[in-house]
């Protein structure tokens, strides 16, 4: 209770923005003033504030607000999926490597180093290039390079935790290695995982936008913030709203995730009290 009352304002702001975004994305079909793919012949690149089109329309007269709400679904879906899949895989690898040590640890860490030696976005471009564009392939591509962060951090913390007296105590009363890992050590690394997850989601959302901008993400006519930006960049000066609003949305989302991550890190860190 005491802890909750001292909740970091960064957490409140970050979580608040994300909650709004989540509501907007989940309720897109209810909130969107128009179907996102409906073409309005008489409203090509209408500016923001045009009656019926709060944020204006795009190059085919499709409502920008509606497309951005549906685009938020893509951003959040990709961000969350990448974090969950990469998180589960990376944490598992980190726990096993940290707990078992020896050649298992060696092999696992060398694999992460190989993957880390590729520029992340290029690796993703290559994977999507081979498998073809689309949201599922995009998620696979982003997972491939983002699980290594979890694996390395978890494994590093495990090495320190193994020597902790309470783990030693557990070992001395005859607990198996698996029990030790799950009961004592996993909770010990949980804070780091949560923090990594928030930052990981931010970079996954940015990477999705970048790949969609390059035409490797969502397949037209579906929209994501990155693909809206990409479609409109030729008309940057005629219809700046098509670049400004998705850009702002990206910025605010990434900022919210970073605020949340920073806040959580300080709040969860036992040393900061």
């Amino acid at each position: 209770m005491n802890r909750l009352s001292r909740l970091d304002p960064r957490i409140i702001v970050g979580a608040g923005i994300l909650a709004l975004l989540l509501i907007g994305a989940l309720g897109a079909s209810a909130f969107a003033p128009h179907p996102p793919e409906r073409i309005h012949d008489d409203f090509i690149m209408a500016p923001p504030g045009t009656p019926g089109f709060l944020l204006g329309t795009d190059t085919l007269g499709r409502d920008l607000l509606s497309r951005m709400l549906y685009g938020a679904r893509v951003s959040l879906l990709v961000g969350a999926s990448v974090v969950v899949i990469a998180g589960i895989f990376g944490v598992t690898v980190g726990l096993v490597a940290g707990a078992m040590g020896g050649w298992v640890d060696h092999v696992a860490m060398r694999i992460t180093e190989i993957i880390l030696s590729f520029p992340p976005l290029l690796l993703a471009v290559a994977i999507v290039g081979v498998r073809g564009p689309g949201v599922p392939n995009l998620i696979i591509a982003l997972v491939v390079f983002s699980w290594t962060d979890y694996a390395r951090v978890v494994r590093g913390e495990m090495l320190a935790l193994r020597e902790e007296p309470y783990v030693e105590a557990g070992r001395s009363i005859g607990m198996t290695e698996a029990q030790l890992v799950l009961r004592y050590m996993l909770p010990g690394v949980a804070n780091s995982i949560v923090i990594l997850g928030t930052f990981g989601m931010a970079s996954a959302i940015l990477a999705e936008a970048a790949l969609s901008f390059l035409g490797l993400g969502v397949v037209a006519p579906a929209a994501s913030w990155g693909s809206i930006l990409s479609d409109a960049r030729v008309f940057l000066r005629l219809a700046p709203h098509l670049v400004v609003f998705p850009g702002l949305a990206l910025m605010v989302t990434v900022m919210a995730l970073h605020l949340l991550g920073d806040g959580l890190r300080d709040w969860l860190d036992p040393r900061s009290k």
Partner: protein
Amino acid sequence: MRTKYLLIFFILILLSLSGCTAGESPETGGTLVVGQSTDVEILDPHRHKDLYAVRVSDQLFDKLVMLNHQGEFKPSLATSWTVHDDGMRWRFQLRNDVVFHDGEPMTADDVVFSLNRVLDPEFESPHKGDLGFVREVRAEETHQVSIELEEPNGALLSALLNVHVVPEHAADRLNEQPVGSGPFVFEERQADERIVLKAFNDYWAGAPMFSELVFRPIPETSTRLVELETGRIHIADGIPGEEMERLTDLDGVEVASTVGSNYSVLAFNNERSPFDDPRVRRAVGKAIDAQRLVELVYPGTAVAAEGPIPPTSWAYDDSFEGLGFDLGAARRLMDEADVDQDLSVELMISEDERMERGGVLLKSMLEEIGMDIDLTALEWGTFMERMLGRDYDMLRVAWSTDPDPDALLYGLHHSGSEMLNFTRYQNPQADELLDRGRRQADVSARAESYREFQEIVLEDVPMVYLLHENQVVGHRKGVNGFRPHLTGAFYFKTGFGVNTWLRQ
């Protein structure tokens, strides 16, 4: 005292008057910079066929004949030509005052050499196919050439529009250090940076008015526009229609557009279900509102098509009506054809803002007749590979050639055209009319053949003819006496009166 002031007053008036006339009369000198969307990698004119490279080659080399801005054939290196032996033999009289950039005179031998170079099967020139009907090229006199054909062919002059005349004595280094007889001399090329040309003072039609011509590749459209607006380049190609109004309102910029010799189609794989059924192809054609496509995606930069022949062609028939937009009829045809209820087909497009936007619009139109479209946007190389490999259901492509209907139609529609007939359209009647149009030398007889041909493809619908794109080019107001050619080429100095000059 007073007379002194009066004198100064008069001098001032005189000065201002002379200032005015100087503004109207052509100026010499200056550097003209052209920004185009693609870099030119090949300088040898017999080794390339893309518009961007042609724009450069047209400055360095001459051709026997040219098309003026109205689409009429005009003399260039050839002053006149005559047809003999029932169209089997053509004789070209050449200018006798032409010198190459290195000072050597141009003779019939150079013309023969150039044509034979293109015809040489081992050279593999992309222009070889256009001249497949040529049997032999001979130098008759120092300044006369005769071309003997396998069979009469009315498209010979059109085919010659592609053959730049190169000097026999400097042919081995044409790609590195091209030497021609054109109005500009090659200076240097830096890959992805610039190609610099200098005015050729001994050009047979007179030296160009400005002294230097630079081609710069600027792939990103918005960057190209900014460069034009700030005056860092004088001419920019590929102006999006949406920007035309804004650019026209600017002080220093003018926008010029001409209907090009091209047609943009929605092509079917005529061998693959469901498009092996002509009723389905016809239904798709009738479900598409080409006018709407033009208004939404190509505002001011294209005209809706009735058939494949563009309005600027001499073979264009303005009484010819295309399929027309009729949703009711389209739905009835789909019912008749009795195709699968949840029919899903792929529409393949190349990665291009306009193609993608058009693709989304076409998808929404075809949903109206119960066709579910998967849009696939591919990088150009992959797109071409799948297109020529006939590995597709439907695709969008623009076909741009010389204005001659033979060049426009033969490759895509004749069953004997192995490579380019990627729809696998086969109709002996259509073949017969294309062959006839190619053989005839008389223009009105040819126009009649192509009119009949259009009736047949209207019946068979091997592809839907959507629109003809304009050539839209922006240029600084200081560029005088310039407008884009209907082939998309840029001419600054020609024998038929084009003489561009630059106000400094």
